[in-house]
C-alpha cells in the first residue's frame, strides 16, 4: 500500500515537472519600464506618457510581438508612478531594474526626477531614455542615459533669438520657480543668451518664486515697473494660467513667452482665453502636423479623446528608439545584464532616426541633435506651428 502511494507521488511529480513550462522552450518576455508622474504635481504628463506607451504596445501586440534576430518576443510594460517626486522616481527605477528585470526604461519626464533617476539607471547599467527632460545633468557622463528631446541651453537662445527677430525687443523680464531644476536652469540660460545679444542689464527684471506659490503679485508688480517689453516664464501648466492672469490684472501689456513646459494640453484648458496669442518653444506642434506625426495625433485623439501633447509624442519616439535599439542588438540572450549592455551599444549608434518629433542623431552624451518649434496658441486655443528653429 505504502509503496503504491510513493510510486504515485513520484509519477505525479514527474508528470508535473515535464509538463511545466520550465521544461518546454523557455519563454523570454521583454519588459520595458515606464517611470512617469501618474499622481502629484503634473499628473497630465503621466497620463500622456501612459497613453502613448499603450498605443505603442498595441502595435507590438498586433504584430505578434517584438521581432529580434528572427524571433518574436512578448513585450510587457511595467508602469511605475513616481508621484512627480525625485525620491519616488529613484525608487521606481530601482524596483524596475532589480525586481522586474526590465530591459530598458522610458522616463522619468521632468528633470527634477530624471536627473536623480538617471544616476540609478546608469549605476545598474540599464538603458534609460527620458523623453522630456531638458536639463544637461540628466545624461552628462552617464553612458546608459539618453533623452528624446533637445536641451535647456538650446531652448534659451532659441527663445531669445525668436523674441529679438519677431518683435525687435531689447528689454526682457524673467519669472521662474527657483526651487525647481527645469525653470531655474532655463531661466539662467535665457538670461545669459539675452544679455549676450543685448548687453549686460538687458534683462531688466529677474524674479523668482517657490514651488506651490500661487501669488506672484509682488514679482509681477516689479516686472511691470521695470519697463520690460517681454516676459519669459519657463513654468508648468499649473502656474502659467495664474501668472498670465495676474500679470494682466497688474497692467502687463506685452507678450508672455514660455518654453516646452507649457506644452501640456491642460495649459490652455486651465488658462482659457487669457493665454491666446502667446508663444512658447516646444518639440512639436499638433496643429499643422504632417505624415507620421499626424497619423499618431489622429490615432491618439481617436483613442483618448484629446490631442496628444509633446510629452505623449516624445514618449512615443522614446519607445520607438528603445524598440529600434533592441532590434538592432540582434539577439536576446535572456541574460539580462548582457542584453542591457547590447541595447545600450546599439542605441548609441542610431543615426537619423525618423521620429514624429523630428529626426534624431545622438551625440556622445546621449543627447539628440534636432530642431525646436515655436508654437503660437491660436484663437481657438490650439497649439499651432509658428516657426521652426534649428541649431
Amino acid at each position, binding site marked *: 500500500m505504502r509503496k503504491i502511494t510513493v510510486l504515485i507521488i513520484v509519477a505525479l511529480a514527474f508528470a508535473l515537472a515535464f509538463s511545466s513550462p520550465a521544461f518546454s522552450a523557455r519563454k523570454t518576455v521583454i519588459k520595458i519600464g515606464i517611470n512617469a508622474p*501618474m*499622481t*502629484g*504635481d503634473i*499628473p*497630465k504628463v503621466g497620463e500622456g506618457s501612459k497613453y502613448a506607451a499603450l498605443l505603442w504596445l498595441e502595435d507590438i501586440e498586433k504584430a505578434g510581438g517584438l521581432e529580434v534576430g528572427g524571433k518574436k518576443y512578448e513585450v510587457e510594460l511595467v508602469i511605475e508612478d513616481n508621484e512627480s517626486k525625485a525620491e519616488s522616481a529613484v525608487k521606481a527605477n530601482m524596483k524596475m531594474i532589480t525586481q522586474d528585470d526590465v530591459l530598458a526604461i522610458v522616463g522619468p519626464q521632468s528633470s527634477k526626477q530624471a536627473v536623480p533617476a538617471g544616476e540609478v539607471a546608469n549605476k545598474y547599467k540599464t538603458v534609460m531614455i527620458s523623453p522630456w527632460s531638458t536639463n544637461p545633468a540628466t545624461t552628462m557622463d552617464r553612458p546608459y542615459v539618453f533623452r528624446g528631446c533637445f536641451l535647456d541651453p538650446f531652448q534659451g537662445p532659441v527663445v531669445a533669438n525668436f523674441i529679438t527677430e519677431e518683435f525687435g525687443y531689447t528689454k526682457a523680464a524673467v519669472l521662474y520657480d*527657483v526651487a525647481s531644476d527645469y525653470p531655474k536652469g532655463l531661466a539662467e540660460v535665457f538670461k545669459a543668451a539675452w544679455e549676450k545679444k543685448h548687453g549686460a542689464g538687458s534683462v531688466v527684471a*529677474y*524674479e*523668482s*518664486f*517657490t514651488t*506651490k*506659490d*500661487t*501669488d506672484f*503679485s*509682488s*514679482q509681477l*508688480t*516689479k516686472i511691470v*515697473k521695470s519697463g520690460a517689453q517681454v516676459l519669459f516664464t519657463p513654468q508648468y*501648466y*499649473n502656474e502659467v*494660467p*495664474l501668472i498670465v*492672469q495676474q500679470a*494682466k*490684472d*497688474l*497692467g502687463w501689456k506685452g507678450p508672455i513667452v514660455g518654453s516646452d513646459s507649457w506644452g501640456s494640453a*491642460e495649459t490652455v*484648458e*486651465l488658462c*482659457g482665453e487669457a493665454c491666446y496669442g502667446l508663444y512658447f518653444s516646444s518639440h512639436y506642434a499638433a496643429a499643422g502636423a504632417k505624415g507620421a506625426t499626424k497619423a499618431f495625433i489622429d490615432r491618439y485623439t481617436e483613442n483618448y479623446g484629446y490631442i496628444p501633447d509633446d510629452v505623449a509624442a516624445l514618449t512615443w519616439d522614446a519607445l520607438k528608439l528603445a524598440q529600434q535599439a533592441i532590434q538592432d542588438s540582434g539577439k536576446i540572450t535572456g541574460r539580462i545584464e548582457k542584453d542591457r549592455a547590447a541595447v545600450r551599444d546599439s542605441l548609441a549608434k542610431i543615426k537619423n532616426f525618423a521620429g514624429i518629433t523630428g529626426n534624431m542623431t545622438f551625440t556622445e552624451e546621449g543627447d539628440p541633435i534636432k530642431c525646436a518649434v515655436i508654437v503660437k496658441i491660436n484663437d481657438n486655443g490650439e497649439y499651432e506651428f509658428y516657426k521652426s528653429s534649428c541649431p
Partner: protein
Amino acid sequence: MEALIELVQYILQNVINALQRGSFYAVISIGYSMVYGVLMLFNFAHGDIFMVGTYIGFGIATLFLALFAGFLPGPLIFLATVIVTMFLASWVGVFVEVAGYRPLRSAPRASAAITGLMIGIIFETGILILLGAKRLSFPPLMESVSYKVWGIYLTNVKVIIIIISLLLMLALHTFIQKTKWGMAMRAMSYDFLAVPLMGVSINVIAPLTFAVGAGLAAVAGILYGQAYPILDPYMGVIIGWKAFVAAILGGRGSIKGAALAGYLLGFIEIFVATIFPSTLRDLIAYSIILLILTYRPRGFFGMEHSTKLRL
C-alpha cells in the same frame, strides 16, 4: 517729484497685493485660533479643511452656474454659493471634531495634535481618489474687471476679496461678543474644566467651533478660487502652515491677533519680495517672524494662561 509719485504708486500697488494675500491668511488663521481657544490644541487639519471647502465651493459654484446662470443675477449666484458652501463645509468641521478629536479628548496632547495631520492626509488622498489628480479650474463667479485708479491696477475681484474678508471677521467678532454661543465659546477658552459644570457641554461647543472655522475657511476657499483659480488636493498644505504661523504670531487663541497677524504676514511676504530679490523672499520673511517671536514669544495678543497650558 514725478519719481516720488511713482514710488508712492508702486508702494500702494503692493499694499493692494498684500491686502489680498493677507486676507486669505487672516481668515484661515482665525480657524486655528478659535479651536485653540476652546480645546487648547491646534487643528492641523485646518489647511485641508480649507482645501475641502474650496472643492465644495467648486462643486456648488459649477452646479449653480449651470442651473441659474441664465436668469439669476451674478451677485445672487455668488451669494447662494457662499451660503450653501459655508453650510456644507461646516459639517466637514463637525466631522473632523467628532471623528478625529472627540475620541482622543483625554488622550495625550501629542496624539490629539497628530490626529489633525492624519485627517489632513485622509482628506488629500480622499479628494485625489475621488476626483483624480487632474487640476480643476474654479469657475469665475464674477466677471473680472480691471480698473486703473491713479496709476494703481485694481480688479473688482481683489476689492471684493478684501471687503468680504473684513465683513466676515466683523461678523465673527459680533457672533463671539454678542451671542450666547459666542459667550459660551469665550467662557470655554477661559476655563474648559469649570464651564462644562455650569451646563455648557464641550460636546456642543467644540463642534460648533470647528463648524464656524470650517465655514470661514470655505468662504476663503471660494474667494481663493476667484483669485487663484487652480485647484489641487495639496493646495491647503502651504497656506495652512502659513496661516498657522499667523495664528501663533497673533497670540494663541486670540482671534483679533490671528486676523492682524494674517495681514502682517501678507505685508511681510509681499514687501520683502518687493525690496529684496524675490529669491530671498521666504528666507527673509520668516526670519523676520522668528525675530518677532524671539522678542514676543506669546505673539501679539497671547494670553498669559494660554502659554502655561500644554502644547
